[in-house]
């Protein structure tokens, strides 16, 4: 069974083909560049770029997988959560192609896609496990008893961790204001100069809060007269360490509470090397599962996979109505 997946929930347009027999046959991603000068994703620009790029990616994914209409069994698209105007493009395209080819379509939850991304790897985790989904839009811990059966253990009460990274990149005026620039400069930081608080770690609670840390960064940075690159690196290190130690601590707590011993790391911040290193140190290499870096950030491979899984459970949609769900909750 082959599923075409389409993803346009934020600032990546993507298409992929997943086959339950042969695995991932192709995956294509275009990362938008129109937002860099604006210091954050501009929803209208994102939607405009999706309209220009998505069909080309679908064509490329199909041709690389040597698939035509007859080879595709279903079409999966991200219906939410995400930016309404961006979601609309991929959803409408997915549904329309399914209609024209007389195939079922499947509306996929983007977060379920992230959660299932490690399933695309050879060393795929087997439920039950705890999943930490951590990206620019989300920070949540989920108890996964089996695929499709999710229980929310905790989530951020304000900023997502990735959002905090992005905002700090902007506060420190780093490159293109992306969170990965913070991680990069943090490597050069003095590990002893600053110590930032670990928010919400004093109670046995699995929720997160990162907006205070961002404010801490602002105050520290403003208190330095004529800051140089080293000052930025020192602050970036302290910030990153505070975020990551908080994430690691809560992951350990979640595993204790659920009495599970496997952790799945998913979402864009899952690409952070220091986070991966610290989780491996604390939990052991064999207990932590994560997808390759390119499947941490938004992609359609995970959407095609999640679509296939839902289809295998008998879920499919033959209606002609499209409803995007910008605030669709996983649990």
């Amino acid at each position: 069974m082959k599923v075409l997946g389409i993803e346009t929930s934020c600032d990546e347009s993507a298409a992929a083909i997943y086959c339950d027999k042969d695995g991932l046959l192709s995956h294509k991603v275009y990362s938008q560049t129109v937002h860099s000068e604006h210091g954050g994703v501009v929803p209208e620009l994102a939607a405009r770029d999706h309209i220009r790029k998505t069909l080309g990616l679908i064509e490329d994914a199909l041709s690389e997988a040597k698939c035509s209409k007859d080879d595709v069994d279903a079409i999966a698209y991200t219906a939410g959560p995400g930016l309404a105007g961006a979601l609309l493009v991929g959803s409408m395209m997915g549904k329309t192609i399914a209609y024209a080819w007389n195939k079922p379509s499947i509306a996929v939850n983007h977060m379920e896609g992230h959660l299932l991304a490690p399933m695309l790897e050879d060393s795929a985790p087997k439920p039950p496990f705890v999943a930490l989904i951590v990206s620019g839009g989300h920070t949540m811990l989920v108890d996964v008893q089996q695929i499709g059966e999710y229980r929310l253990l905790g989530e951020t009460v304000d900023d997502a961790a990735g959002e905090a990274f992005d905002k700090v990149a902007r506060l420190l005026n780093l490159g293109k204001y992306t969170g990965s620039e913070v991680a990069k400069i943090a490597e050069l930081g003095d590990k002893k100069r600053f110590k930032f608080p670990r928010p919400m770690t004093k109670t046995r609670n699995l929720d997160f809060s990162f907006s205070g840390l961002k404010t801490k960064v602002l105050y520290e940075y403003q208190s330095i007269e004529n800051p140089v690159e080293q000052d930025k690196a020192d602050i970036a290190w302290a910030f990153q360490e505070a975020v990551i130690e908080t994430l690691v601590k809560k992951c350990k707590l979640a595993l204790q509470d659920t009495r599970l011993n496997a952790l799945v790391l998913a979402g864009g911040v899952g690409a952070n090397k220091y986070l991966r290193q610290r989780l491996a140190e604390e939990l052991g290499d064999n207990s932590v599962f994560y997808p390759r870096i390119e499947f941490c950030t938004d992609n359609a491979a995970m959407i095609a996979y999640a679509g296939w899984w839902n289809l295998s459970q008998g879920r499919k949609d033959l209606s002609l109505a499209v409803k995007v769900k910008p605030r669709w909750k996983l649990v």
Partner: protein
Amino acid sequence: MGNLQILSFETSSSICSVALDNKSVVSQLSEQSANRHTEVVLGFAQKLLDEAGLRLSDVSAVSWSAGPGSFTGLRVGASVVQSLGFALKIPVINVSTLQALAQEAYILHGIDDVFVAMDARMSEIYCGYYKLGSNNLMQPEIDDYLVSVEKLSIPNCKTYIAGNALSEYEENICIPSNIVGKFDDIFPTARAVSAIAKYKFYKNETCDPIKAIPNYIRNKVV
């Protein structure tokens, strides 16, 4: 040539309409469906095909109202025609939304000379000027453009004015003395798009599906 079937989509305003030209018999479904275009548009297409006893694979080309208009609405139309064009391997025909509005004025009232003014929100108006040409089609006299309400200048000649900007900005718009009549209740429709598209199809003014990109006109959005 006699077997031409064109499916046309108009999603640029609060009204969603779809039309089927089946060997020159045009049928249309429309609904005032603000924010619900994604839910109704494909169902309309299928219903028209069912009523005509056709299948989607019988369609020779798709056309759409490509702007200017509601950004989100235009992307519904673009997503639909790009996908249909690609999936069915048929060409797409882009039609100006303002030309469709002018054509609808002709269909409804036989108007052959019209200045169209569509509300672009934020105190701006999308404008165009159309006159009846060959084949009973309204043709542009100038390129469609965007202008602020204060700077709107309607030609003072024996023409009609059509479009919802007239009622939206009634107090701010000065109608010149020579204007023959005004219609603020005319919206672009899929049947009007269809009439223009058919002509463009025969003139080979079609495009690859991936080139079905909205003409927003308003490009400063940040």
